[in-house]
């Protein structure tokens, strides 16, 4: 399963990638999937198993996000708690 975090700005997305990298999480920036609407055209792709830790890290560092999305089949689903 693919899991991404969307952002309101590219600066927030890049700061998120740096923070994740600093913390040892293997995440990378990819273009925003067309099915998702977010302010910024890039999203952070993370391993499904670490997404909650990364999301918590970003919240602790006050990096604004536009939601966490899981891809199931061909469809992206926004997590209700994100």
């Amino acid at each position: 399963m693919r899991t991404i975090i969307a952002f309101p700005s590219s600066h927030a997305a890049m700061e998120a990638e740096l923070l994740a990298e600093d913390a040892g999480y293997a995440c990378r920036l990819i273009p925003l999937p067309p099915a998702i609407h977010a302010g910024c055209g890039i999203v952070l792709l993370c391993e499904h198993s670490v997404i909650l830790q990364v999301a918590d890290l970003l919240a602790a560092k006050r990096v604004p996000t536009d939601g966490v999305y899981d891809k199931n089949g061909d469809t992206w689903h926004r997590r209700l708690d994100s």
Partner: protein
Amino acid sequence: MIYLDQSATSLHKPPEVVEAVRRGLSGEYGNPTRGAHTPALRALQEVALVRRAVSKYFDVSPLEVAFTFNATIALNMAIKGALTPQDRVLTTPYAHNSMLRPLYELQDMGMRLDIMPLDKHGCCPIELFVQYLHADTTAIALNPMSNVTGDIAPLDDIIRLCHQRDLLLILDLSQWAGTRAMPSVAQWPRTLIAFTGHKSLYGPQGTGGLINRGNVPLRPMISGGSGIHSFERQHPSTFPEVCEAGTVNLPGIMGLRAGMEWLMTTGQDKVQQHLSTLRERFISGMRTIPGVRLYGSQMADAGPVVSLNIGDLPAAVISDALNERYNIATRAGAHCAPLMHQALGTVEQGTVRFSFSFHNDDNEIDTAIEAIRTLSFQ
């Protein structure tokens, strides 16, 4: 050349700065906020790393930092973006025209502007700030280090005062940044901090920024491409995008990062001590020369700036003689600080300003002292 005009710009940059700018122009970097291909993301990462360096130096969060092309643009964005004609603002004679002129524009639209005087020593103690605050004052706009005399305002106390009174604080750190550390206070008020990259942060010209502590709402002063929300008619109001319309000066801010990292590696305290020693040596020398008039309080902890005149000679004549005869670069005139010259009584004469950098040494100071001594007897 003995360069004593650091307050205008730093002439000598660390080699790391030159190398960083060269690297920024090397063909590796795309547009940092336009697209998600490798060169664009590489550029975006560089921008993020510069933001981190700036945030580390100023002890703020990276996303509280926006890049502008100089402090003047940052101050215009802060003043015109945060204030309205309904505000009432207090400022001091230390203010540079980059702060005064935007304030005057708002004053012409109805904003009330109070300008406190200096005390008899040429200083602005906290008691004067308290005295000149009104019940409806909403903001203090402050240059905490005079670019004419080097005198400093009690920034720690002013920060606390703004926090206590819930005042917006707009700071011009063009002279302060790089010459001494930021104040260490427990709680900051809502604060907009303008800085320039090319003076004592040793970056290239065309760099600077605005720091937004406390998420102060800003209206965009310049609108355009932001890389986000492309179908909206208005420029985003989110920070830092609200201040970063168009493409950032990537090679420039890469140089700025190198300058700031050089500064932090060298040590801000070490830099401040060196600057203080140079200033004290210069002032001690000037006090031995008859006819030299020093301006400002000459307080021990002032910034690395000294203004003087010789008798009634126009400042421009002295500065020109220093340049032509002794190959010493100083600045004469008003230094874009009209209220200071009104306070000092030097509107007509101007002053000769000497400002020091970490790259100056005792021999250069002594040469400048002897040059002034010779000129004073002619």
